[in-house]
């Protein structure tokens, strides 16, 4: 780390207790924490509940609602619709619940059934018209959002040979990405408007991909770069020429970040300003930024800082708020969620 980097600090703002089992995932509500709108996020847990947390006028977070008595097993992941009107929650009970947010109330308005067993991840596309889910049954499901809180399954995608850990839509076009226990990332697109989805690329070991379970992936703001993390203890950055609006443009490996975590890396998230956060089973959080020193050999990334002992146990999820402050939420096996703020000790502008 060079001198300049010591200027950055990931400062713990708050440690939130309430869940009674491991916290698996956190998700910030879109367009909160900006323009005077208080920041809001959801957390989900092995205690079968979802908690909604809201920032108060002093900048500290309080639990505003507990969503319970709907899921009967672990709630593995949660995702807000782009409008913030709905929250989708994926559970080991084989269902995905859709909650409508009216004021401070949350009502379960739909339950999506179809997966054989554990649902592990849920993701809304950029317009909120499509939802994707995945699970232990090795399949990825695409659901169309219809009026009246109806959700219709339009496609069931088979291709992964093991359970699918996460699905994530690209932010700039309706291309779906999934990552799996089979060590690969798959890219899925629709054929015209036929509701017929197929895999156009598999990023595996032969494409300089991961050599063990791929747990998570995330996109930069433009959607033409992707970061992934794995049980192989590496973080990989990928790119494609998506900006040319060619959905079929192949994704290529850019670089591999290794040696920063010494146990499974469960979560990566790319902030709007370009900072990659990672959370791992070594209880640590790392932040990375693009290194512009070496433009000849293409983009590379460097460690901005490492927060050892960020939690008392595994860090399962890290998520940046996209608002005014550089807030990062992290979820852990220790049953807590922590809110962090990235600050510069010199008081200079962040980047």
């Amino acid at each position, binding site marked *: 780390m060079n001198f300049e980097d010591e200027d950055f600090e990931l400062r713990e703002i708050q440690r939130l207790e309430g869940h009674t089992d491991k916290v698996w995932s956190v998700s910030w509500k879109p367009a909160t924490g900006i323009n005077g709108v208080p920041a809001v996020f959801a957390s989900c847990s092995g205690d079968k509940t979802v908690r909604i947390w809201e920032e108060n006028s002093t900048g500290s977070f309080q639990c505003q609602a507990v969503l319970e008595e709907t899921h009967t097993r672990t709630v593995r992941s949660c995702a807000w619709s782009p409008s913030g009107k709905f929250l989708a929650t994926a559970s080991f009970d084989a269902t995905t619940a859709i909650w409508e947010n009216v004021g401070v109330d949350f009502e379960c308005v739909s339950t999506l059934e179809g997966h054989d067993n554990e649902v592990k991840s849920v993701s809304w596309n950029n317009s909120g018209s499509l939802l994707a889910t995945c699970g232990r049954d090795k399949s990825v499901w695409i659901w169309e959002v219809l009026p009246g809180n109806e959700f219709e399954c339009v496609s069931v995608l088979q291709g992964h040979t093991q359970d699918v850990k996460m699905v994530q839509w690209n932010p700039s076009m309706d291309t779906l990405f999934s990552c799996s226990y089979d060590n690969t990332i798959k890219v899925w697109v629709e054929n015209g408007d036929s509701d017929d989805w197929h895999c156009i690329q598999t990023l595996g070991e032969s494409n300089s991909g991961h050599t063990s379970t791929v747990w998570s992936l995330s996109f930069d703001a433009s959607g033409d770069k992707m970061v992934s993390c794995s049980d192989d203890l590496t973080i990989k950055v990928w790119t494609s020429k998506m900006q040319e609006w060619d959905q079929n443009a192949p994704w290529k490996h850019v670089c591999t970040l290794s040696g920063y975590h010494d146990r499974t890396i469960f979560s990566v998230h790319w902030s709007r300003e370009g900072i990659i956060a990672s959370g791992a089973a070594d209880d640590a959080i790392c932040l990375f930024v693009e290194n512009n020193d070496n433009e000849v050999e293409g983009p590379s990334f460097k460690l901005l800082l490492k927060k050892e002992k960020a939690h008392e146990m595994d860090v399962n999820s890290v998520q940046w708020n996209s608002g005014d402050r550089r807030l990062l939420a992290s979820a852990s*096996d220790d049953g807590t969620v922590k809110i962090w703020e990235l600050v510069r000790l010199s008081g200079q502008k962040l980047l």
Partner: protein
Amino acid sequence: MVSELINANPVVYEKKERRDRGGRAVLDEYAAEPIDQLEIFDILLNGDIKDPEHPYSLEELKVITEDAVDVDDQRSYVRVTFTPTVEHCSMATVIGLCLRVKLMRSLPSRYKVDIRVAPGSHATEAAVNKQLNDKERVAAALENPNLVDMVDECLAPSYA
């Protein structure tokens, strides 16, 4: 539980005499007490984890031995290497799950635990190891009532 035994005639070994740890003098009850290899072995065996198929303990079947426990208390790390009784033992994942649950229930939560089958001891070694160390799969397994019953049965005191 299983209609046909996977290993009908396992070799049963004598239980080894336990090393005498001696009475531990408590000098400072607030001092962090380091955890060593023998202690982990005691945790795994004093509970008398039984083979899912047989009335014998995992020690009597040499599924685990003291040497198979690596501990680094400074780093809060434990690795247990076990040896299934036969190469195709489909019970290997259940045995591994029992070992993990036993350690989860006994060790401080700061501990990181890796469980694996001994190199060369199982036909699908890599697959078994991967499954045993995927915490999402472990969490899901421990919400399955049938598997939890099986694990609890293995971990139940034998009153022998």
